[in-house]
Structures are given as C-alpha cells and as structure tokens.
C-alpha cells in the first residue's frame, strides 16, 4: 500500500488516511459505524452483502454521487463520504428484508434486521429456507488457511456452499474455522469422544499429553505444524495443562535454585 496520505471527508468531518485504504478501514479507525455481514478484517473483502453501502461524491465530479461498498472502495484525495442517509437506509433495509426472506429462521439475521427496523420480511419466503446467507466467509477463511476444502457451487439463487461433488471434502483438515467464522451458525459440527465431525467427515483428535482432553484433529495438527514451521509438539498440550506446567517449572526453579527473596521473573520483551 502506498504511503501517500490523502484527505477525505466522512459525514462532513475531515480525516487523513493512507491512499489505498478502504472507506471501511478509515471509518472503523475513526469509530464511525458502518454495518457489514460478509466482511472480516482477516479476509479479502468481496462486496457480496452490500450492507456497507455508503454514498460518495467528490468536488471534481460535477455533482455526481453514487453508492459504493465501503469495504472495497479505496479512499482518494478529496473524497466525500456519507454513511447515513434515507437512501442508504432504504438499501440496507431492503437487503436485510431479502435476506430475511431467504433465512427467516436465522437469529443473527433477525437481530441485524431488527436493528435496521425490519422485523418481518415483506417478500415471499424462499421455498428452500436456509440459515446460510452466502456471505462466503467460510470459503474465504478456508482458502486463507490454505486448505480450499469447500467452495461455492452453482450460481444465482441456486448457489450454495458445498463440498466438492457432495462428498466429504478431501482437503478438509477438520479445523472448524468455517463454522466459527459463520455469522449465522450454518455449518454444523461436533466433537464427541475424541472424534470431530464436520462436512460429513470424522476426524480422530489429538489428545493433550497431560490430561488427555481432545485438542484438535490429527490431520489439522500435521497441517498447522507444517504451515507454521514449528514442531507438532508445540500443540499437544492443552492451554490449561501448559499453564500448570509453567507454574510447576517456575516454582521448582525458584524454590530449588534460588532463595525466594531474590526471585524475579521478567516479562521478556
């Protein structure tokens, strides 16, 4: 990203930002709320949900103004942004209304819609009801993790998130990142007796070397250790046991090797 600093206005107030930052990034930094559904800071913005639409104009645009998605639009010198207006509210309301017709039973969508004054959909409820809003966060997080196990299938209104060929995805490591990032809890998973089930697949879990509590799937451990370039042993102790071990180590070290009055532990920096 360039280091060039540009001046822009959001809701009439002037701000500075690095050129190439998105409107959403600047607004977030300044504490100006813009609603989003498909956005996550760790993932590439895609502009799918359209909830973050804001109005932009520019003194050089001879009065032209239009709606853009804040998550994608890069700021530029002189840009004037409005984050709230009658028109923007209408767009956001309609989007949530449409999503409510798609997912009438998704509590999260009900909540966000209610925040925008939509308590029931004015459209025909979709025949195939789902809680998936197709924000694509799951697919993107899977890609960021380097697995690419799941993807979109088909197009248009028949689009869905799917494992390839409807089979247990061969590239899935059972990490459940997709399920955790999902705002509407549309991806089911469970851990039962040291076995994780997700995407019609069962994963044997690695157990904590101290307490035996299941930690993560064996496949995931191998994958993550390789990706991070660390020994898998780093991740075979659960946090509670690690803490206990640390405590024991410190106590032993200080009670045996040094007089208690002189011990000092520095938090390294």
């Amino acid at each position, binding site marked *: 990203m360039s280091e060039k600093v540009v001046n822009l206005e959001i809701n009439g107030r002037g701000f500075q930002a690095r050129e190439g930052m998105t409107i959403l990034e600047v607004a*977030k930094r300044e504490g100006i709320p813009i609603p989003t559904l498909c956005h*996550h*800071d*760790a*993932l590439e913005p895609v502009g799918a949900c359209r909830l973050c639409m804001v109005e932009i104009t520019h003194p050089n645009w001879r009065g032209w103004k239009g709606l853009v998605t804040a998550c994608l639009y890069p700021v530029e010198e002189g840009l004037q942004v409005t984050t709230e207006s009658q028109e923007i509210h209408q767009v956001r309301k309609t989007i949530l209304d449409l999503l409510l017709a798609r997912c009438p039973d998704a509590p999260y969508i009900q909540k966000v819609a209610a925040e925008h004054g939509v308590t029931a959909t004015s459209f025909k409820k979709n025949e195939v009801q789902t809680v998936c809003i197709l924000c694509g966060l799951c697919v993107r*997080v899977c890609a*960021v*993790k*380097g697995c690419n196990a799941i993807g979109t299938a088909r197009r248009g209104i028949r689009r869905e998130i799917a494992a390839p060929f409807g089979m247990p995805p061969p590239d899935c490591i059972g*990490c*459940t*990142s997709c399920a*955790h*990032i999902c705002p509407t809890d549309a991806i089911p998973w469970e851990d039962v007796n040291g076995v994780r089930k997700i995407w019609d697949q069962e994963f044997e879990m690695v157990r904590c070397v101290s307490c035996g509590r299941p*930690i*993560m799937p064996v496949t995931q451990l191998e994958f*993550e250790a390789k*990706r*991070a*370039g*660390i020994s898998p042993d*780093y*991740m075979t*102790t*659960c*946090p*509670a*046991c*690690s*803490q*206990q*071990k*640390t*405590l024991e180590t*410190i*106590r032993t070290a*200080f*009670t045996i090797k040094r007089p*208690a*009055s*002189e*011990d*000092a*532990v*520095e*938090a*390294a*920096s």
Partner: protein
Amino acid sequence: MQKTLVITPSRCTACRTCELACSFKHAGPAGLGISRIRAFMFGEGKNQILTCFQCDDAACVKVCPVTALARNEATGAIEVDEDRCIGCGLCSLACPFGHMAHDGRMAIAIKCDLCGGQPACATFCPTRTLEYI
C-alpha cells in the same frame, strides 16, 4: 528504553487485585472479561503470578493463519487484532506456557497486551509485585 513488566513473586500476597484490574480494564460492555494475568496462592512467599512473557520468537505469532497477532513495537507487547482473529484457537494451543485464552467457544483470542503501555495490573498492585519499569 522500552519498559517491561517486572514481577517480584516474593512480594505477592495473592490478593488478586491484578486479576480484577485486568478484567475491568479489558471488560467490554458485557461485564467482567477474562483476566490475562493470574495469581496463584501457594502460601506466604511462594505465590506466583503468570502472564504472557511476550516471547521474542513467539509460537502464537507463528501459528496464526491470518496474522492477527503482531508485536506492538512501541510497547513490545504481542497484541491480538480482534477484527482479524478468526478464533481458530491455534495460538493458545501453541503457547508452551498456557498464557493465552479464548473467550467462550472459539471466540477471539485473549492475551496480555500490556494495556497499550499502561498495564492496569501494575498500576493497581498494592505490593509492588508488579512493576512496569
């Protein structure tokens, strides 16, 4: 020079003021958060305080798949970018010292951030067990 959080366990009375201070400082509107520092009571003179060592070669940073963990060069603390964290839990598993936590089932990671340079635990520690110097 960069300040560090210095812990002198021999002074600790395990009053747990640090835990409270940490919780209040990081609490969201929901109420008390999880404390990033913990005091363990083993009897006078043997009490222990555990919090993040802010390791130089930190495993948590290495395993994070979305670079949500990064060192704040000003304070030296490794901080969690809460908007980037995807709650995968790898960092808390990778920390060999058990210094990281997750708030609820796979929510975002929690760790000591030295309160951005004004650690509340040190500020409120009544016995100077915790000093930020």
